[in-house]
Every structure is written in structure tokens, then in C-alpha cells.
């Protein structure tokens, strides 16, 4: 049987990383109802020690996530160790709003998708895009040219991907020093490419290649 061994506190309580306090409390009560010694749902499923360990994990998770300071420190640890994408936390507090906006976001995405498809079907634009994508390396400027070929504004990409306009601008302006860790840049490029309906793998590889060429000295410093 699997235990909670490799799970983080959010996974243990089965809440999203940007869960509100009331959601965490609700999840905690739910977990106790399942794993408590009185629970019929797990009657005889675990040995006493197993149950004790599971309950301790649940308590520890609740204890940390319910305390704002502890939670921030814990989130930072998860980000630093690469366990959780920082973007998952950054939406904290926005979830409530999002629930209302969901249908709008969806239609935004759909509308943008149709627009991109229409543009890609225009032979002249298609040629320009293919010329840019044929290169082995892709600079931020070329990404910008791609975007402009589709006639899409940065704010429109932000609306669909939720990546901040600043981050998108930095990527396009080759401001590598101001970009977050590579893993996030990859995520951003992937989302960016998906909006433009171009090969995400190629965009990531060729942009990172360009990035590596452009900042050899920094690599030395880091090594």
C-alpha cells in the first residue's frame, strides 16, 4: 500500500497549492473523518502504526498550511527544491475571481485560437513564420516577430496563459538576467508556443540555445 511518504503537504490534504484557508480547514476535517481511529471507511485497512504515521502527516500538513508564515516558508522550500512550479502559488487569492471569469477565459482562448488558425492559413504569413522557425536558434526578437506576424498583442497572450506581461516582454527583449530559473522559462515558452500553435519543443530548444550562446560568461560564474 502506498503511504504519504513522497507527498507534499498540499497533496496530503488533497488541496491545490493556492487553496484558501477555509478550503484547507475543510480538507483537514475530511482527512480526519477518513483516517481517524473511529473511521469505518478505513476500518482494519491500516495497522495502528501506519494509521498513527498517516495522522501525524495530516497534522503536520494542517499545522503548516494554516499558519501564514509557516506556509510561505514551506512554499519557498517547495519552489527552491523544484517540487512545485512557482506559478501555482502566484495565483493565490485569484482563484475566487477566476471561477467567475472561467467562461470568459475559455472564450478568449477559443477566439484567439481561431484567429491564430486563420492567420496560419494565410500563405504569406505562413511563409514568414516558417522562415523564422527554420533557424536553429531563436532570439527573443524573432519570437516577437512571430507574434507580430500573427498580429497578436502581449496582453492577449497574458490573458490566455496567465504569464505576466513583464515576463513575456523580458523573454522577447532577451533580458536573460531578469528571467526566472530555466524551468520556468521553459514553461513560459511552452505556453507561448501553444498560443501560437507552433512546435513547443522546437521553440524551447532553439531559444535556450540562443540564450546559452548569448550569456557564456554568466555560465562560467555559475559554475
Amino acid at each position, binding site marked *: *500500500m*502506498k*503511504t504519504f511518504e513522497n507527498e507534499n503537504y498540499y497533496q496530503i490534504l488533497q488541496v491545490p497549492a493556492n487553496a484558501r484557508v477555509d478550503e484547507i480547514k475543510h480538507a483537514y476535517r475530511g482527512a480526519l*473523518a477518513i483516517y481517524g481511529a473511529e*473511521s*469505518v*471507511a478505513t476500518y*482494519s*485497512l491500516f495497522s495502528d502504526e501506519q494509521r498513527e504515521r498517516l495522522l501525524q502527516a495530516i497534522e503536520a500538513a494542517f499545522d503548516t498550511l494554516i499558519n501564514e508564515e509557516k506556509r510561505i516558508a514551506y512554499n519557498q522550500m517547495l519552489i527552491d527544491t523544484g517540487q512545485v512550479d512557482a506559478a501555482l502559488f502566484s495565483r493565490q487569492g485569484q482563484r475566487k475571481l477566476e471561477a467567475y471569469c472561467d467562461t470568459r477565459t475559455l472564450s478568449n482562448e477559443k477566439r484567439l485560437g481561431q484567429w491564430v488558425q486563420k492567420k496560419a492559413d494565410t500563405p504569406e504569413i505562413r511563409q514568414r513564420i516558417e522562415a523564422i522557425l527554420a533557424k536553429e536558434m531563436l532570439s527573443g526578437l524573432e519570437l516577437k516577430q512571430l507574434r507580430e506576424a500573427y498580429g497578436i498583442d502581449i496582453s492577449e497572450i497574458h490573458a490566455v496563459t496567465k504569464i505576466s506581461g513583464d515576463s513575456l516582454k523580458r523573454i522577447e527583449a532577451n533580458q536573460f538576467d531578469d528571467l526566472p530559473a530555466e524551468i520556468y522559462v521553459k514553461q513560459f515558452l511552452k505556453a507561448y508556443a501553444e498560443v501560437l500553435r507552433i512546435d513547443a519543443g522546437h521553440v524551447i530548444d532553439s531559444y535556450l540555445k540562443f540564450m546559452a550562446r548569448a550569456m557564456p560568461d554568466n555560465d562560467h560564474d555559475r559554475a
Partner: protein
Amino acid sequence: MASVEKFGDIEPMPKIYPIGGGKGGVGKSFVVASLGALLARNGRTVALIDLDLGASNLHTFLGMPAPKDGLNRFLNKHAATLESTAAPTPVTNLFLISSSTCSMEIANLFYAQKIKLINAIKKLPFDYVLIDLGAGTNFNTLDFFLTSNKGVFVCTPEPTSIENAFRFIKAVYLRKIKQLIKRHDFDAQAKAAVLDTASNALTAQDIIDIVATYDPEKESFFKAHIGRFHFKLVLNQFRKNADAGLGNKIETVCNRHFYSPFEFLGGVAFDERVIDSIYAKKLYVKNYPATATTMELKLIAELLTNGQPASSLLQQAL
């Protein structure tokens, strides 16, 4: 039997649902008979196999006398095919392969007979095959349960029943894992450690740990294999004072702590008239088509046939 034989040439694969649960008296046979009747009413051909060997009485739930023949004719080679031993029931499209006429020693089926039977079940020319299994966790019961990857557990909301259900699940797991190890090319040390009969206190997790230690490459193969099982759960004899969320809790727990997906199909309300029907030798769902119990059984039958909740269930979830 013409309606059965016409399927003989094309050999379609039936959907097989073994129905077990560990504890006796939780209503396995009642659930099998009811679901069988409901599935058959939707125009599908259904075979019920009574494999509660030595304690077979599925016919009583169907409101019919014990068939004169059944499984015994197939096992003693008087019948060439298993389907030819299927007796018609009072419900159109529903057939029963009974073991009530088998010898008193049938509970101790020989290994070769068991394999022959399992292979024949897999080829039965019906849309659905429901297997009524006995209580307990003996190897025959476990192996029949493993005939299909869509096993259904029936238990009641009582702790004793849930305890037996968990034990049954664990026993099924262990049996499956040992089968996998025997039949596939595992590291010799892993094989020896797992199949060592002296250490019979091994749990499924112990075995997974052993494999992870001696044969780490096989670990994911292993998990993928067990992951192919889709276990389903029915809570029978559900009374008003029981925890309404119990089924979902068990589903959550099993999904988190076992390596296969579990689905709670629903609760079936307790109804005194089930017992009355048995006394009257009448099929409950036919006699009481509009009770809560029958409605809930219908929902479960729908979940089994469509593989997804009925639209009415979905609306509740939203």
C-alpha cells in the same frame, strides 16, 4: 437456447464482472441476480454464473427452481461447451449457469478444472457475464475474481463487512502479484524471496519492495500491470443511519493507497421486502420496480453498461 447459439460462430468477448466481497451474507447473490435482470432488460444477453461453489443458491434470488443441470455437465465433460449448460430464467435474455447440482465436493475444484472453467468463461457468447463468488479468500475464489479486470466488491456499511472486504482486496492483490512474478521473467532473487512459502505473511507492499530492491527495472512494469485493474464497490443494505459519504470515503482511500483505480458505484438501500421476495421465491427488482433499492440498482447497472455515471448522477455532481 437458439438465441444463445446464434452467437456461437463469431465468439464475441463478453464483459465479465466477478462479484465478490469476502464476507458472507452481504448480499452478493442478491446484487448479482438484480443487476443481471436489469442488464438483460436493456436488451443485452446476460449469463450469471453461480461460482459460490458448494453454497450455490442464485436460482432462489431469480425466483426459479434449481436448474436440473449446470456447471457439473461441463466439468464432467458431458457438455462440450459451457454455454450449453446455461439454463433460461424467468427473465428474457438472462441465463443461469448453476453449480447447485455439482457434487458435494465441488468446493475443492481441481486446478485443471479451474483453468478449463476460467478459459471457457472468457469465451462465453453473451454480452455480459456476472460471476457470483463465495465468501472468504480461498484460491478458487481469488482466481475466479481475477478472470476479469473489472471486479466488483459488495459489502455492507458495517465494520465487520468492510474489514473482510479490505482483506479480500489485499488477498486479490497478493494473488495477482504472485501470478505476475511466476509468469514473468523476474530476477531470481526476487522470485525466490516472493515465492518462499515459509514467509507467507508477505503483503503486496512487501513484494513491491522486494521487487524494487532486486529487480528495480520491473517495478514500473509491475505497477502498470496492477494498475490495469478497475475495482468497483457497491455498498449493499444501506440504512438511513449509516454515513452517507462512506462509499466515497472508501473510494478515496483505496485510490490513494492501492495501485489500481477504484470506483464507488453506489449504495443500495436496505429493504425488508428483499427478504420477503426470497421467501416468496420472486425476483425482487421485478416485484418491486419502483422502490429506492431498485432505483439504486438501476443506476449501478447503468454505470456498468455505460462506463460512466448516468446523466442524472452527473447533474448531482455538478
